[in-house]
């Protein structure tokens, strides 16, 4: 769907991270964790094309986005105020996080990769799954919205590179300890590529399936332009798949086949 949605809330949750909610009843009913919206960001000289932003949570009639203010597009978006509208195409992505009907799910997020997994944790909690969240960031200023997990009753472990909050180092360390102590049925992950690779490797080591959310530069967002590809290993060898329509969530094994 393409629609103009009214902004209902907009605030900064960290130095350079904005949270925004929009009213969109049809979308709220239709979307799945891992899906994203392709958002028109003002048509500036440096932001004519849309920006892909994950659906970060769904509450009632509203969708929430959580995004890093990075360049001109996200800067424009962060300046929208309640009452204004934003033009978005959503829900996009056919490859979503696939949660089991029951069991234990570990969710690992790095940096702004925390955005889509809030929605995922919402779903896991609603389904009564035994979910745990592992959040990594550079420093304590890059950790935000943990109250969302508290509301859901999902336990969180934090790691920061500078040790400012939680364990010092990468979040893969507490994640690995947890796997060793109590092996989950599934690991879902979103974050920078090195983290995704590391988590995919953990999954391989411990025999746990891993689902990762990928990013790639996009044009159409709907599978038409073949612009956003990743190499994927399938039955017939390596070929390209679209992050926008085949993903953004893929099996770790599929996309990090050349990991070692």
């Amino acid at each position, binding site marked *: *769907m*393409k629609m103009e949605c009214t902004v209902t809330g907009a605030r900064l949750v960290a130095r350079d991270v904005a949270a925004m909610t929009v009213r969109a009843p049809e979308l709220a009913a239709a979307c799945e964790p891992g899906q994203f919206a392709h958002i*028109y960001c003002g*048509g500036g*000289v*440096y*932001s*004519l*094309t*849309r920006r892909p932003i994950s659906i970060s949570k769904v509450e009632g009639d509203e969708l929430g986005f959580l995004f890093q203010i990075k360049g001109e597009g996200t800067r424009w978006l962060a300046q929208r105020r309640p009452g204004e509208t934003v033009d978005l*195409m959503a829900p996009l992505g056919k490859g979503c996080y696939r949660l089991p009907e029951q069991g234990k799910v570990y969710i690992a997020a790095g940096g702004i990769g925390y955005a889509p997994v809030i929605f995922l944790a919402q779903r896991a909690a609603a389904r009564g799954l035994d979910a745990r969240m592992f959040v990594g960031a550079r420093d304590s200023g890059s950790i935000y919205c943990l109250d969302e997990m508290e509301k859901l009753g999902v336990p969180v472990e934090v790691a920061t590179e500078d040790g400012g909050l939680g364990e010092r180092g990468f979040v893969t360390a507490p994640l690995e300890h947890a796997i060793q102590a109590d092996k989950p049925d599934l690991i879902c992950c979103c974050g920078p590529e090195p983290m995704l690779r590391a988590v995919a490797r953990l999954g391989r080591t411990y025999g746990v399936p891993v689902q990762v959310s990928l990013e*790639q*530069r*996009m*044009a*159409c*967002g*709907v*599978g*038409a*332009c*073949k*612009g*956003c*590809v*990743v*190499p994927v290993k399938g039955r017939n060898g390596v*070929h*390209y798949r679209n992050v926008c*329509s085949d993903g953004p969530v893929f099996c770790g094994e599929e996309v990090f086949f050349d990991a070692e």
Partner: protein
Amino acid sequence: MPNKPNLSVNIAGIAMKNPVMPASGCFGFGEEYAPYLDLNALGAIVVKSVTMNETVGNPGPRVCETPGGMLNAIGWQNPGADVFINEKMPFLRQFNTPVIVNLAGKTASDYAELAARLDGVEGLAGIELNISCPNVSEGGVAFGTDPRLADEVVRAVRAATKLPLIVKLSPNVTDITVMARAVEGAGADAISLINTFTAIAIDVKTRRPVLGNFTGGLSGPAVKPVALYMTYRVAHAVSVPVIGMGGVLRAEDAIEFLLAGASAVAVGMGTFVNPTAMIDVIDGIERYLVENNMDDVHQLIGGLITD
């Protein structure tokens, strides 16, 4: 309220409801955008470049934004002619809109074989020859920038198909009218232009090219003034109809192309910015005609006043 103006045009025997169609590669095989707009509303549907066999395409990143435009280096990723015919055409035949297949290859005989394979496929209204894609290292570019090679490939394809033949020109040349006259002479029924400008972008953080393929093709609003100029020159150099493209996003852009002499326009990057851009363009052309007391879009075509 005046009568609805006539928007229909006929390009090389292809009857279109209106002069607006997608640019090849920017609308997939139609199905991807079907949830966003009514394919019956378009003048024609031009599909992504098809090659004889499946082509895997270039490594990513394949697209990146540039000021007022974008680069792409898709590398002709497509499932090949047979899959196109067997799996994509059935969907496209459902609509009351002519389908134009864009063909790409590496040698003149590639193109001719491909054209022969597609000749007679039910529901195909025409062929567009992409002799101008700058993203494939062998062959592709030379056809688009050398009039003798262009002549050769167009003649080969002309002999292999009875379908209306549109030849798509590259802007990466000193004088585009030389290419236009060459392909007209070789049997093109229409000319489309422009394809993309060879270009690069550099990521200053990594000090590497942004695109996996290093070079890509520039398109979008950024190139519109050059595309318009080339359209004007070609429309005045040949007698076959011209399909203009390069940066059409709004109805005014399309009207500029029509005034410059294009008989129809294609929308490429514009669809990425606004998935209903083509519909807005069609509506806007109709509104312009009404507001200016014109009852036929042909009154716009070539209507630029240059005294």
